[in-house]
């Protein structure tokens, strides 16, 4: 695995993947947007504000999933010291932060017409803000501590602690009474969202995941170039 990463083949693979995603991205984006904005029906209660959900829910999923990935990779990295995992976590973190912020902002925009308020300190929204803070801490430590080994150690520990927050976010709506509604899509059992609204939701999720992959590949490439450049300097 390590050889595969060090190999200059990685650039070819990144290039191929990027090209492939680029070739299908805009078609899918157009399809997803037309489903989300035109073809899907308004909600029986909230009307057209339901369309905010098609961005809000996938963004929240991606925010949670990216942090889970970062945390597990950080734990493995902390124990086994695998260099390229650092590059991967570093590349995922800004994407996760962006989507967490998107989830919070779109949720707040949705909250005003439906709940009647932009912001409440209920368990779901507060724990989601804490997730954003963990992302900020993770990124800030990578930027502020110039000694890379130490930065990795500390940020790995922070990611590991942040992992505890993930189940709290997921189950906050079940453990405590919150203003935020419980999950509509359940892992087991039927979902409480009508299929005509599930299609645009899943399509938007696919599109945003592809977008994440694009940004990730670009960021990962620059990280590898940065490391290679650094190694070159060493032999000067």
């Amino acid at each position: 695995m390590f050889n595969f990463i060090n190999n200059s083949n990685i650039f070819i693979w990144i290039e191929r993947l990027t090209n492939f995603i680029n070739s299908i991205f805009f078609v899918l984006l157009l399809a997803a947007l037309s489903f989300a904005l035109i073809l899907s029906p308004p909600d029986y209660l909230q009307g057209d504000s339901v369309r905010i959900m098609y961005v809000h829910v996938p963004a929240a999923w991606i925010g949670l999933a990216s942090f889970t990935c970062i945390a597990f990779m950080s734990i493995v990295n902390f124990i086994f010291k695998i260099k390229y995992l650092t590059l991967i976590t570093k590349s995922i973190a800004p994407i996760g932060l962006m989507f967490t912020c998107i989830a919070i902002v779109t949720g707040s925009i949705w909250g005003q017409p439906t709940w009647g308020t932009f912001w409440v300190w209920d368990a779901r929204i507060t724990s989601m803000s804490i997730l954003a803070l963990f992302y900020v801490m993770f990124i800030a430590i990578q930027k502020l501590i110039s000694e890379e080994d130490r930065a990795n150690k500390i940020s790995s520990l922070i990611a590991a602690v942040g992992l505890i927050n993930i189940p709290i976010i997921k189950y906050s709506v079940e453990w405590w009474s919150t203003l935020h509604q419980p999950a509509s899509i359940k892992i087991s059992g039927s979902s409480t969202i009508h299929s005509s609204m599930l299609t645009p939701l899943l399509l938007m999720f696919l599109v945003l995941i592809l977008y994440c992959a694009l940004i990730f590949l670009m960021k990962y490439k620059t990280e590898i170039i940065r490391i290679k450049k650094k190694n070159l300097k060493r032999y000067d």
Partner: protein
Amino acid sequence: MLPKKVKKRASLLVVFLSISVIGVILILSALNKNLLYFNSPTDIKINQDIDFNKRIRVGGMVKKNTLKIKDQEIRFIITDFKNEIKVSFKGTIPNLFAEGKGVVAEGKLQDKKFFIADRILAKHDENYMPPELKNMMKEDVK
């Protein structure tokens, strides 16, 4: 066999993580009551030492056929299908506020059965469906 250094780091991480997990659990259990965004009418009924000067939130369903609007005042009953509490409110209500839907009222308790709210939030449930389907369901009920 794993090298000694790897083992040392693994055990360090396990200790560190278990301490933080215990810490978080302790904090959450200490905060338990405060983490609830609202109290149900049953919570209020059970609770022995209510501070009537403190602002609290009561949440539940707006009981059907109890919503009355008189001049500026809106009166309704919040129910959790076990206990009820009467609510009086003056001000603007969110769009989604309706009979049979979730609501969170913020304000002060007058006594255990009467609540004066100064803010009303509508609670949306997890059901999403197109309007035609809702109408069909209504007809089924009839």
